[in-house]
């Protein structure tokens, strides 16, 4: 079976690196984007099986990116997970309303990330 491709959208290089390294080690293919706009462009140009996105990002926020992704036919059913901090309960609700599938609370470790990815990607 082809490797599942996951899009990691984050303006923090260290998080992108950690997500990519963890998922690649576990056998996934990872595409990265630096902010919501970049993420949206990547999503339009390549097919992905899952999106992991930060919320606070320049140019286009994670929430707005999720909203726009969900209007694309190819992304109607793709799992989208947002990275939030514990203080962002409000954001979590907003993300859900925008169409996010789930969330991971920062700080998280590689095992927690993999557990969530496994839950959403077959």
């Amino acid at each position, binding site marked *: 079976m082809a490797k599942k491709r996951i899009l990691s959208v984050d*303006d*923090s*290089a*260290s*998080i992108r*690196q*950690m997500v990519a*390294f963890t998922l690649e080690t576990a056998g996934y293919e990872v595409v990265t984007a630096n902010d919501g706009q970049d993420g949206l462009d990547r999503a339009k140009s390549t097919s992905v099986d*899952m999106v992991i996105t*930060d919320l*606070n*990002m*320049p140019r286009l926020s994670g929430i707005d990116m999720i909203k726009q992704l*969900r209007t694309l036919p190819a992304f*109607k*059913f*793709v*799992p*989208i997970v947002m*990275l939030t*901090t*514990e*203080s962002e309960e409000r954001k979590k609700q907003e993300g*859900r309303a925008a*169409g*996010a*599938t*789930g*969330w*991971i*609370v*920062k*700080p*998280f470790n590689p*095992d*927690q990330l993999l*557990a*969530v990815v*496994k*839950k*959403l*990607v*077959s």
Partner: protein
Amino acid sequence: MAQAIDPANTFRQEAVELLAQLETTLLDLEKAPDDRGLVDTVFRALHTLKGSGAMFGWDALAAFTHHVETTYDLVRRNELKVSKELVALTLAAADHIRVLLDTPDQADKVRQNALLASFRDLAPGRASAPAKAAATAKPKAKTSSDDDARTFRIRFRPGRDIMQFGTNPLLLLDELRDLGTCTVTPITDAVPPLEEIDPTACYLAWDVVLTTKAPRSAIDDVFIFVADQSDLAIEEIPTDPEAVRERRLGEILVERGDAAPADVEEGLSRQERLGNLLVKSGKVSGDRVASALVEQQHVRGVAKSKEVTSSAATIRVPAERLDSLMDQVGELVIAQARLMQQAMSLADPLLKSISEDIERLASELRDTTMTIRMLPIGTLFGRFRRVVHDLSNELGKSVELATEGEETELDKTVIESLNDPLVHLIRNAIDHGVEDARQRQALGKSPTARVLLSAVHSGAQVLITIEDDGKGLNRAAIRAKAEEKGLLSPGQELSDTELFSFIFHPGFSTAAAVTSVSGRGVGMDVVKRTIDGLRGTIDIASTAGKGTAITLKLPLTLAIIDGLLIRVGGEIYVVPLAAVEECVELTREQDHRSAGRSFLNIRGEIVAFIRLRQLFEVEGEPEAIQKVVIVTFGEARIGLVVDQVIGQHQTVIKSLSRLHRDLEGFSGATILGDGSVALILDIPHLITFARDRETMQRAS
């Protein structure tokens, strides 16, 4: 990249850049305090410092930055104005963050508290709560202290739009299955008529009974993302043997809130199956009753396994009793077939439903009886250690016997009949197959030869492999011997499979010297005959210098098989269903085209066929459209031309009388529902027959 990836280093770099960006933005912000974009940039920089810092071990930095971030969140929400004081304070905070980044141990606590107090003073009454380390989606470590498995009832009705949020509910069910023993019942009552179905909506719900050692929180975690969009109920149910015996279907339905106690009472007062009754009366949906019954079964199973482990209930039964039980089950299956036939001809729905019940019970009884008769093959493998030991001493070779798959179960009769063939094959492997220690060393092999005996299940078959790491079969010697015996014309091209199959001919041995062990060509033909008798097959794979692997493919049981009934003329025959690949039609037109050649083109592949009418010398005109049953055996494939394909039949195998035992082409007989006898076709034999005929035609 030779350098190991370390996100902590990346973060350090990133943080330095973010702090620089923070400073320039703050200076800009001082000049333009109302610029939303600048406020957002400051907030994001702080947010990333906090979030990523916490990820990679800068806890103090994350905690401190959290308070600064909270202040800017207020600014973002227009609850606080940007002032010169705020900017100055934030710049001071940035300096402190830099200290926390580089040398967290040397950070000045007093200064930090003073900074935080100043932030609080700027936004009185809005002081932020300290950052909690709680993580919602954290999969909890499974606690092993909870040794006893508990059983939960999980009723999961996902929201209609769940899939539009990217959730695949089947993956959640899979996750539950990973937690323990799991019985899943789909509830389809909400599925609308086809024309009203929205293909992107989820109409299904599931009832799950899960027995797991994982804590309750592990189940909650499975549903963490969907809990607020779904109807979800998770309850623990008791599984003590006592409690289980008490719980009837009605109680379960009432307990689950699917049926009212009064309805159950009413149902019980009328002596019929409660489930059927409740469904018929429309009070409870069929799915709900099925799901409750599943729970009853699941819980019974759990309780039973508890009981079993507590008493390790085994009883010894004489083997003859099992044999006679199997015979009786066979008779029952035959009687049931008669009942079915009668029910069909009378067209009485009540009789038919009774007959169907009995059919189901009979086939369950058959399966149970068969499992009782199963023995692990390890009992047989154990005997061969001695054989190998004695033989290797006698021949002066060093041989080690390894076994795999001892737990594989096979019918007791099959295991008993396997002893002699396996002894032959092991002797052959040690005598002919493996070299002696000196030769092996010269060849760079380990001086001790290895013979591997393994067994594995494959569908309705068991594969037993005898593998050695010796010199492999000698193709040239086999060919020479076959030519010498007139089995092969010189120069004839043969595949390995065909060539190797000569070693099963009686009196065929290529061994240079006759030893006391082997070399007289007695054995392999006996092996072949025994395996044929068990309706099994033999495959040989051999690589020169590397070794030989002989694989015996055996059916799980001998007594009852699934068969395909066919008719040729006025007679009915049985083809073992395991051998049937497909059934196709042979129209008169195709028949004419194939005239005399007896070949059929099936999707571009040429398949030889045998006309059973011809073979059995049936008089009269064949049907206009003849059917061809394509059967396979090993790699060979032929068509059997028949008049009619009737259908599947549970076939109880009866051996042929002494008079007919040597009849070729039939492996046994069975009794049909109307009491008549049908012969079971011996597919391997028919294939050989077809091949020989082909060779003869080719030769003539």
